[in-house]
């Protein structure tokens, strides 16, 4: 499984990357905002997207919308991992078609739980 992590803070990308490695996912790429991530996703091969919301350039919510609007990658599972925790924002992300929402600070168990849940649902459907 090939995963793309998008966050403007390299520290957070490395943390998620290492947590994913513990969970058995080692094929992980990184991007620092939506503008960098979108062409990578469009060029294909990714099975899962983990993205922050608040980034310079293209934000996570707009990256999600762009993914859903592109027929080639529209069904890609997307997990938002963000410090943004306003009700409106969570509703907005849900309406834009997010598959999971983790609010920072988070722990390893939460990351595992949300990833497991997303793939359970995908397999069930």
């Amino acid at each position, binding site marked *: 499984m090939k995963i793309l992590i998008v*966050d403007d*803070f*390299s*520290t*957070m990308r*490395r*943390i998620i990357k*290492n*947590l994913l490695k*513990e969970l058995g996912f080692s094929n992980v790429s990184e991007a620092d905002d939506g503008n960098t991530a979108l062409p990578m996703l469009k060029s294909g091969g990714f099975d899962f997207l983990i993205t922050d*919301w*608040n980034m310079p350039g293209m*934000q996570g*919510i*707009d990256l999600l919308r762009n993914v859903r609007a592109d027929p080639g990658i529209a069904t890609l599972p997307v997990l938002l991992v963000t*410090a*943004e*925790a*306003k*009700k*409106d*924002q*969570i*509703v*907005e992300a*849900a309406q834009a078609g997010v598959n999971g*929402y*983790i*609010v*920072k*600070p*988070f*722990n*390893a168990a*939460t990351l595992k739980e949300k990833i497991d849940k997303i793939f359970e649902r995908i397999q069930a459907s």
Partner: protein
Amino acid sequence: MMDDMDQQHYLALARSLVSDLERGQCDDAERTLEEITRLRKNASYEALDRLIALMDEAPSANKLDATLGQILTQEIPEIIERLNYVDDMINDSASKTLNHVERCLEACELVKAGASAEVLNDLKAQTHDLSQGLNEILLAQSFQDLSGQVLSRVIDMVGGIERYMVQLLNHNAHEDRTLEGEGSVDRRGEAGTEPYGPRIPGLENPEMLKDQGEVDDLLSSMGF
């Protein structure tokens, strides 16, 4: 505080006072004395007024400009520099810790793989504890992301105040007071996709959810 005109006036009055008295004109002398007293009173009030005016106006305007100038040219740039330094330091420290953790985790994996062939159960157990600890340290570095977001928000806010004050100063110089654009200092709380940033103790927003549990509840209420 006597100018030439006052001096001439006093001299004339003094002369007429002397001549009144020499001629025995007591009433005239009395009037002259009153005139002199009135003049002296006026002179002291005028001096007092001038002093008050000096204290009130002249120094304050200059001082205000000087203070504002100092805030703009020294203090705000210094605050931004200090905050940037703190941000860099946190970033460096988190990076160093992550480098060490990654190396230790790799060593753990090597020991785990090698030890499984031998009967080194104790070592395996200890290595498991070690990698758990290292993963805790790893996750703890997320403070850099959150504090970094808060710091860049503060840096933006101070920068906004700086630009606003420069505009204010420029507009004051030309009496055109239509301030716009960059004057808006704080982007928080706007509707739509505008990011709000991490939840900060003491700056709670009722619209913000407290933890992952509340986020999960909201999403499940929407059918997630």
